[in-house]
């Protein structure tokens, strides 16, 4: 029993806590310089965080007794604020660490690509209990006067069992939050519409990803769709001047077998002659959105922890007595 007490005392002591804090600081500094990203995923680092959690949890529990006692004893108001502040601030950190652990254990992330009219059942991308479907109605980019993007917006409809539930706009800084699933405007891209006569003589029109290879009929030549450039200027090469489609072009290249024949920048609806009497026409682009979807059961706890921490730190430090009172040493 005496041993258990000693171990408990050691793990919950402030000295141990401070050593762990310093250790975390040191290894984070080295980790971020030497192995950016990967270091913070390692078991070693996670164990350190777990140790901090354990230590802070125990010392916070100890602190609750102390704080309640000070509440009953009724010392000066400033000491009262300070004790509650210190308690809340440590409790907040404990919540954040717990919430973060819940994310490591049960959190899920995925990315979905949707063009206008497409839909996805959320249970297909996240392992969640509640089923619902997201349908993209429109993806658009809004622009500033100088042609730089001011906002990326995905207009979506949420459906449950085929019924429309509601319509929302997901944009940067305005994620969707629905039944424990959050969806963020993450990225976007363009499918390129092209028309040509295929090998079987059929008039073909379709949407293609950048990098797609077209095989028109009546020639050995192939067309590679390289890139969509919304505002083309030869002086900028393959980079668009702005994202706004002021001068849209499709960059394509032509091959015969493995042999590269040339590269061009085609305007929309302007037939491009690939070979004698063989044309490909790029008719436009179709934007698609990329949404990051996330299910994080720890998020409410982390948020509560953040708020508790902010509240605690303000109470403890900004209302503290002018001089340190030495009577609350522990």
């Amino acid at each position, binding site marked *: 029993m005496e041993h258990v007490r000693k171990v408990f005392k050691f793990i919950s002591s402030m000295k141990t806590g401070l050593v762990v804090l310093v250790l975390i600081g040191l290894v984070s500094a080295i980790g971020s310089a030497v192995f950016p*990203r990967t270091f913070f995923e390692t078991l070693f680092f996670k164990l350190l965080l777990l140790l901090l959690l354990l230590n802070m949890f125990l010392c916070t529990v100890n602190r609750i007794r102390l704080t309640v006692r000070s509440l009953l004893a009724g010392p000066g108001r400033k000491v009262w604020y300070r004790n509650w502040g210190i308690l809340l601030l440590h409790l907040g950190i404990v919540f954040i660490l717990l919430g973060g652990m819940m994310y490591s254990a049960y959190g899920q992330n995925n990315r979905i690509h949707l063009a206008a009219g497409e839909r996805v059942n959320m249970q297909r991308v996240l392992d969640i209990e509640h089923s619902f479907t997201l349908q993209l109605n429109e993806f658009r980019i809004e622009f500033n006067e100088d042609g730089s993007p001011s906002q990326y917006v995905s207009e979506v409809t949420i459906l449950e069992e085929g019924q429309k539930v509601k319509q929302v706009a997901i944009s940067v800084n305005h994620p969707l939050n629905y039944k424990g699933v959050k969806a963020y405007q993450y990225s976007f891209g363009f499918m390129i519409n092209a028309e040509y006569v295929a090998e079987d003589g059929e008039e073909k029109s379709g949407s293609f990803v950048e990098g797609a290879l077209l095989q028109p009929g009546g020639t050995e030549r192939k067309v590679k769709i390289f890139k969509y450039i919304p505002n083309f200027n030869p002086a900028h090469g393959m980079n668009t001047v702005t994202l706004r489609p002021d001068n849209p072009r499709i960059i394509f290249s032509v091959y015969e077998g493995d042999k590269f024949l040339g590269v061009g920048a085609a305007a929309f609806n302007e037939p491009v002659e690939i070979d004698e009497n063989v044309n490909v026409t790029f008719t436009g682009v179709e934007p698609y959105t990329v949404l990051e979807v996330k299910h994080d059961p720890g998020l409410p706890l982390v948020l509560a922890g953040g708020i508790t921490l902010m509240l605690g730190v303000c109470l*403890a430090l900004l209302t503290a007595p002018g001089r340190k009172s030495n009577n609350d040493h522990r």
Partner: protein
Amino acid sequence: MGNIMTVIIYGVLFSYLLAGILYLGGNLKSKASFFKYALVLAVVGCVLHFALLVMRTLLTGMLPLTNGSEFLLTFAWVTVLIYLILSYRYEIQAAGGVVMLLSALMVFVLIALTGGSLHAVAPLMPALKSPWLTVHVITAAVAYSAFTVAAGLAVIQFFPVGHGIKEHHMNLLVKCGFALLSLSIVLGAIWAEQAWGRYWSWDPKETWALITWLIYAVYLHLYRNREWRGNNARWMVIIGFLLVMFTFFGVNYLLPGLHSYA
């Protein structure tokens, strides 16, 4: 307005530089008149500096906190402001030289980075349009400033002229800085969650802000302990300040990441 702003920023730089030199001179010769002139220059610089911030705000229609240069401009101003307010109430003039020279250095770096041109206006990218981001950056700027002044007090306390400075005042600044840095980190995490879907991703800026936060936390815990006061506490405050500098300059200008929006 561009030309006027360039002139003003050089005016600010020279006021701070001269104020710093006079403060140091006052320390060496212990002449009260030096301190008086230094104070006048610091106030003049601070007022000019404020005018610059107002002009920048009128120019862009946003608080001057939307990129690295604007942040530096605000950070340097708040540093001087905190020093002036504190020196009005407490005996801390001995640290005036260090604080004013640090502020002058920040203004100098700003001029070096931007070529003195403060009139460039670019619209905000969508990710930066968030009220969370605004409070995140304001709290960070004031926290950094408080840590800078605290470091000024710490440095001068190593010298005989600084012995009149009360350790308690340095502690007060660290406490305020720590509280604000805590708010800043949490608010930044809330913003990151809204904008990118992750409240913490161990990007270099986040990691180094956390390390900075931790050293001041260790300082605050140890401060209860008598044997950790004095020089040990001062060293921690100075190292904390160097970490603040690295978190800002090192990460913004040396390492890539989400935060390098400068």
